[in-house]
């Protein structure tokens, strides 16, 4: 959990690391030379950690413009003989898929590891995609760490496997590993002397069906190697009739669930550290002894389907087996089988039902009695834009301008903090939300529907990091086809949602080197689209800018630029904002408690005792926008500078 732990030079010592730091350490122990990524939760901190150590370990680390470019860069390093690492979330693999499928055919040279962060339960994603199915389609081996320790060990192992197969290897890491922490037993760091060599004779080509055959041979070898890998392990009685096959952290949950049920002595747990290709010989050995098999994995029944197919092919050897998992609905959390995360409770409940042991999920038994004491129903806590978030001010301006315009304008969006435009904190403004940059493409489409009678103005909002990542092709398309819509870039000058990583619009790179900044204005001008720039904290000016641009035709861009409120106050003294009780006239104002109830910044609270508005100083980030909107001008901003 500290950078000192990640670069600790004493092998054999134990340090507390996060899962993401553990992956970074594994890469350092493997001698990684090139690392690239586009930030995405749950794996965003891997590259950030490596970037901090780049100089010390003589490695190259970059925040790439998107995952496809990141993967191409890492592949180049591998072609030149370096060990390379590319990191992305599951959604990012979709972006990189075209190149990834070609790369699988051509193969690689230096060990190349693709870390994919899956997010079962969609804690920090819009969906809980299981990337293993894609990896299978790509013909790439998949390793799955079960713990923070394994995140390191598996990553290191993946480099060797990749190098011996001459094929990129995927480390599929879920949120409960990436965002977990634990003590990690460190291995030896690799020496940092390496040279990149790519000569006139080198050719790395994806062409001809012969290479497909070679790829299948590589996978067959991978399956053999998987069978002997120490990444798989077994815990329990020999020749177990009852077997749990687990992958990822579900292995830890299974062990604990069996302990809770008192079944540890009777049930075997086979952990697959390599889930594609399956270690068939190893599995068949256990399947022959087993009469009942339960699958513990997240999210889709991936191991389940493939093991059942294996058992079907070897039906005469494995005999009768009853399989329990997502397909027959017997391993299921509260959302149903194959939906959401597993945990020790879900597994304990599923296993107790399968093996008829008594177990009740021990939440508080009499919740009603407790809730009655509250006198109210327990309020939910929904997600909210931070206090002072420039997006709130931008959303407010867009909403106001659309009301003034009165034509029922449509607002679209996509992925970033501004995704919260789909919920209350963003006034439910966004009407479509899919993936990085999709808002611009959809707006481009809507902007061509006038010939079918569609006559609403269209606004799409896009963040600055997303602008560079995925909006440019759609903007070029829009200009080329004269699509009629307005793109509002919510430019908070950072990749805020994943922890403030830089992007091409910034002055510094991931490693803190000076960058040749790519100004978004220059890009927009180059495409030939008219644009304007405004500060969203100046709400009247921003509202006017949105309104005026709404009246124009064709593609146009409004940049609403203001640094993320969290980045702006980091390490600085905040402005003090408070309500002057002499000026706030409470409910007699007629504003309808504008600051707390309408604008709804979480720092604007209501003091029931005095019947007046109040600023929660523990929450406020000092932006002062509410002070400009209060009809009584009752909010005072004491500026620190």
């Amino acid at each position, binding site marked *: *959990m*500290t950078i000192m732990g990640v670069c600790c030079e004493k092998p054999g010592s*134990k340090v*507390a690391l996060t899962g993401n730091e553990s992956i970074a350490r594994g890469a350092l122990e493997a001698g990684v030379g090139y690392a690239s990524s586009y930030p995405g939760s749950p794996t965003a901190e891997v590259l950030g950690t490596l970037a901090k150590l780049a100089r010390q370990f003589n490695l190259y680390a970059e925040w790439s413009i998107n995952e496809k470019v990141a993967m191409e860069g890492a592949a180049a390093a591998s072609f030149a003989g370096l060990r390379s690492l590319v990191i992305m979330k599951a959604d990012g693999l979709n972006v990189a898929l075209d190149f990834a499928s070609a790369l699988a055919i051509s193969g690689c040279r230096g060990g190349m590891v693709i870390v994919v962060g899956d997010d079962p339960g969609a*804690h*920090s994603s819009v969906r809980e995609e299981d990337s293993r199915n894609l990896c299978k389609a790509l013909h790439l081996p998949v390793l799955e760490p079960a*713990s*923070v320790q394994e995140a390191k060990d598996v990553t290191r192992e993946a480099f060797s496997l990749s190098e011996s197969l001459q094929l990129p290897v995927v480390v599929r890491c879920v949120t*409960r*590993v990436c*965002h*977990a*922490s*634990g*003590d990690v037993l460190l291995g030896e760091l690799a020496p940092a002397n390496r040279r990149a060599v790519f000569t006139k004779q080198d050719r790395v080509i994806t062409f001809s069906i012969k290479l497909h055959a070679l790829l299948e041979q590589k996978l067959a070898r991978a399956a053999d190697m998987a069978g002997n890998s120490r990444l798989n392990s077994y815990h329990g009685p020999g020749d177990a009739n009852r077997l749990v096959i687990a992958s990822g*952290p579900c292995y*830890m*949950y299974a*062990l604990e669930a069996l302990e809770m049920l008192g079944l540890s002595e009777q049930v075997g747990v086979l952990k697959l550290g390599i889930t594609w290709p399956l270690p068939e010989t190893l599995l068949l050995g256990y399947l022959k002894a087993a009469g009942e098999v339960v699958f513990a994995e997240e999210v889709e029944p991936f191991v389940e389907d493939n093991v059942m197919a294996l058992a079907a092919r070897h039906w005469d050897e494995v005999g009768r087996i009853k399989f329990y998992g997502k397909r027959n609905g017997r391993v299921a959390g509260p959302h149903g089988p194959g939906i959401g995360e597993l945990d*020790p*409770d879900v597994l304990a409940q599923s296993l107790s039902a399968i093996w008829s042991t008594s177990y009740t999920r*021990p*939440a*508080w038994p009499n*919740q009603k*009695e*407790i*809730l009655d*004491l*509250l006198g*109210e*129903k*327990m*309020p*939910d*806590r*929904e*997600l*909210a834009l*931070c206090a002072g978030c420039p997006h709130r001010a931008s959303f407010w301006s867009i909403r106001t301008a659309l009301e003034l315009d009165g034509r029922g304008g449509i607002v679209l969006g996509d992925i970033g*903090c501004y995704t*919260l435009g789909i919920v*209350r*904190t963003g006034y439910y403004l966004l009407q479509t939300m899919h993936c990085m940059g999709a808002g611009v493409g959809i707006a481009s489409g809507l902007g061509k529907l006038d010939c079918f009678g569609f006559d609403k103005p269209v606004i799409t909002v896009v963040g600055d990091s997303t602008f560079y990542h995925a909006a440019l092709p759609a903007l070029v398309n829009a200009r080329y086809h004269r699509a009629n819509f307005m793109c509002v870039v919510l430019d908070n000058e950072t990749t*805020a*949602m994943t*922890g403030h990583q830089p992007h091409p619009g910034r002055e510094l790179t991931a490693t803190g080197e000076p960058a040749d900044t790519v100004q978004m204005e220059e890009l927009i001008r180059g495409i030939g689209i008219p644009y304007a720039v405004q500060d969203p904290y100046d709400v009247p000016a921003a509202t006017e800018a949105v309104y005026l641009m709404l009246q124009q035709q064709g593609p146009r861009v409004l940049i609403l630029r203001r640094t993320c409120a*969290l980045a702006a106050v980091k390490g600085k003294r905040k402005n003090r904002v408070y309500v002057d009780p002499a000026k706030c006239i409470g409910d007699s104002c007629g504003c309808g*408690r504008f600051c*707390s*109830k309408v604008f*709804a910044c*979480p720092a*604007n*609270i*209501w003091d029931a005792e005095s019947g007046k508005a109040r600023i*929660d*100083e*523990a*929450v406020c980030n000092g932006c002062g926008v509410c002070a400009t909107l209060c009809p009584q001008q009752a909010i005072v901003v004491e500026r620190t500078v």
Partner: protein
Amino acid sequence: MGAFYEPLNMIITGVGGQGNVLASQVVSVAAAEAGYRVAVGETFGVSQRGGSVMSHVRISRDRPYGPLIPRGRAHVIAGFEPLETLRVMMDYANPDTVIIMNDRPNYPLGCLLGEDKYPRPQNIRAAVQKMVSRMHVLPATELAKEAGSPMAANMVMTGALAGSGLLPFGREYFVETIKSLFKDHIRELNLKAFTVGLEHVALPVK
């Protein structure tokens, strides 16, 4: 020296932005420094801030545990916000769970908009008291303000955890960890806040 739980299951909960994750980091680095096994699972939502957050911290002697505590099996819950404390208790507390709770509400959006009502503080307190026999309520945000900044409430709460007598290692490991993680005036602020929290809870149980 009394017996300690094996593993010790601790939950730190609050609202995004309260420094919850940092507090769990301090506890777990201190535990690892003291020679214990530690497993932490963080649960936080889509945005960086604004939603419920919860860290599971499991400290053990020998064996590693998974990052998630089973329901009803928390030994101590440190709640940075009253409503979130109660919410987590419903799933993870049992009558023997020790509760350490900041008394400062952070109002959910629905309450600000007047669609939901935030329960009266004394009612939340009564509900917590009904469930468990040992509870420490402290004005962590106010104490942090006195120490220099309301943002240091997380270190006040960390101090309270250290003072609870439930952890199998001493305060010196926390102090060293805070010194190693922070520098300059933030270090001084956090050390001060930590000490205030520790002393507050080390007083006799009310």
